[in-house]
């Protein structure tokens, strides 16, 4: 029994890290731009396809592919901000609908380019680490490791650089931030670009674990959505807490009760949080 508990904890932390990568980008895009980006899951899908192209078609090393994915996604995000979202800056509802349309365009674009079949993706690591009875698959350990490094890098950027301070100021209050010299014309495209890059890198990290196809974006989007609602829309520490909570909860319920029970419990939790703390666990109420 203690084996199952420890194993579930490990599985849950790995899962939580994956959810966190997705959720941070989602909440950042909302915090900065006030856009509920329903296309977020499709950037996960694009990241997975970029990894596929880099690793299996071009034969690049995985690390190089990840770096290229991040760079490409930031540029793509900046471009999308300018072309799609800029006209809807002050209009949350229209921005949301534009993002739904964008999601459909991206998904069907991928469907036309790559077809509906799942694509082969080689494992980046095989075998397991054994700690007594406990098992950690090397492939997941690798994903976890890179994920944590990326999250730490993002944290340092956000907390200790001029750009990060600007971004945080923007999340807190756009007008005052711009009065203090935060340049919106740079911050908006870059903010969305970084949010999208986090989704894309999550996709690229998950590709060897969960496979690549045009339809893989919807589940991570749903998880990001749940995490962000639990943690509070726009709150990054809230997202971190909620992602770990969700990962561990899912893992324990799946291992001890059943997979369906995990899904039920997740939504019971969402409803409970919405009822008793509508702004989320660490949300700060309506801005």
């Amino acid at each position: 029994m203690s084996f199952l508990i420890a194993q579930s904890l490990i599985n849950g932390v790995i899962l939580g890290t994956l959810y966190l990568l997705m959720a941070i980008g989602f909440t950042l895009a909302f915090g900065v731009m006030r856009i509920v980006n329903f296309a977020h899951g499709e950037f996960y899908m694009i990241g997975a396809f970029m990894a596929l192209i880099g690793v299996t078609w071009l034969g690049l090393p995985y690390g190089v592919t990840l770096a290229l994915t991040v760079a490409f996604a930031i540029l793509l995000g900046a471009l999308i901000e300018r072309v799609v979202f800029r006209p809807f800056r002050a209009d949350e509802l229209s921005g949301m609908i534009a993002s739904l349309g964008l999601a459909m365009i991206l998904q069907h674009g991928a469907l036309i380019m790559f077809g509906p079949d799942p694509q082969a993706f080689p494992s980046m690591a095989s075998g397991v680490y054994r700690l007594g009875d406990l098992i950690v698959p090397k492939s997941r350990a690798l994903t976890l490791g890179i994920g944590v490094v990326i999250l730490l890098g993002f944290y340092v950027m956000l907390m200790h650089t001029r750009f990060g301070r600007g971004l945080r100021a923007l999340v807190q209050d756009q007008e005052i931030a711009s009065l203090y010299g935060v340049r919106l014309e740079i911050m908006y495209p870059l903010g969305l670009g970084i949010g999208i890059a986090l989704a894309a890198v999550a996709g690229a990290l998950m590709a060897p674990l969960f496979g690549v196809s045009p339809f893989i974006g919807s589940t991570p989007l749903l998880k990001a959505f749940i995490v962000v609602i639990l943690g509070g829309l726009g709150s990054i520490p809230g997202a971190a807490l909620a992602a770990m909570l969700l990962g561990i909860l899912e893992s324990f319920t799946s291992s001890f009760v059943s997979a369906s029970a995990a899904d039920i419990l997740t939504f019971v939790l969402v409803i409970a949080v919405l009822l008793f703390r509508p702004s989320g666990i660490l949300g700060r109420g309506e801005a």
Partner: protein
Amino acid sequence: MKLTKLLGAVSGIAILAGAAMAEDQVLKIGALVTQSGAGASWGNGMLRAAEMAAEDANEAGGLDVGGTKYKVEVIAYDDGYKANEAVTAANRLVFEDKVKYIIGTVGSAPILAIQPITEENGVITMTLGFTAEALSPDKPYTFRPNPTTGEVAQPQIDWVVKSQNIKTVGALFPNDETGEAIAKDIASAYANAGAELTVKEFFERDRVDFVPLLTRILAKGVDAIELDGNSPTTAGQIVQQARDIGFEGVIIRTGGPATQEIVNVAGAAAAEGMFVHSAFNPELETASAYQQRYTDTYGDTMNGFSPFFYDGTKMLLLAMQEAGTVDDTEAVRTALENITNYEGVVGTVNWTGEEKYGIAHQLDSPFYIARVEGGAEVIVAKCTTKGCE
């Protein structure tokens, strides 16, 4: 001036084209298959099979039925493996496109959902759906041109259990009608073979992370994992993740050909050594020629169900020729029932199922057990419904 000339030319061409159309009658066949989502590889295999059968007829100058040449045209709709979308598409096919023949559906729930429309209007359907309820005496227009778990499970499980000395089995199934039905069948098949299905897990179809469930299954110490009932993509993920967390036992895929997709998703290394159902013998010349044509035409790997639907569509076209009509579907249905020992690309096939379903609309064909080696199937046993050797 230029514009009027152009318009004149265009309308001239249009008139010519109209005249050419009038010479040839058109026979429309619907393809109501899954083209997006998890079942897409099955659906595309079926659609392309119908397209190639149509191409054969058209290359011979059209399908000759009672002296009239028909150009065969395939009209495709996507049901996304969903019953409600299948009903919408079936309504369009039957009432707007006016088709009398439908290749599809892929799923069990979709075929049961469209049967009230197709049976009522005498539309012949050829479904892949594995549910036993798809075929019955009060559904005389539905045929199934592929073997299902009901036909293949017992002989195959008997053979694998015996040859691999398996005592306990764990399995994961999608949490819906299809999954529940298959779980029940598989449990009794293993019990009959002298093994026991000790752990059953159900999950929602869009799940991608199976590690928590597999952890639970492995904690119970099973000899084998059974993948029957899962879509090719999901089965591939289960194989990969089971090997990832160190499962070293036997992996068995009883129903539904999906080896190529499983290897694609899981990787050849993880899939190595698993036992799969194979409806398709690459050593058979006609079968490998079909596979070659498929990959040459579509640049894609072929799903194992595709040749069955190629044969099925060809048999349907043959039945129209023998009945001498494309409109009287009752006559076509009877002609189709009367086809025996048809030499298809999958071998010699017949209709069976009188005993099991009360109506002989189920295809009877040879099948195989294969072991995956280096990402490809190697046939290790040849089977009939009576047993494998």
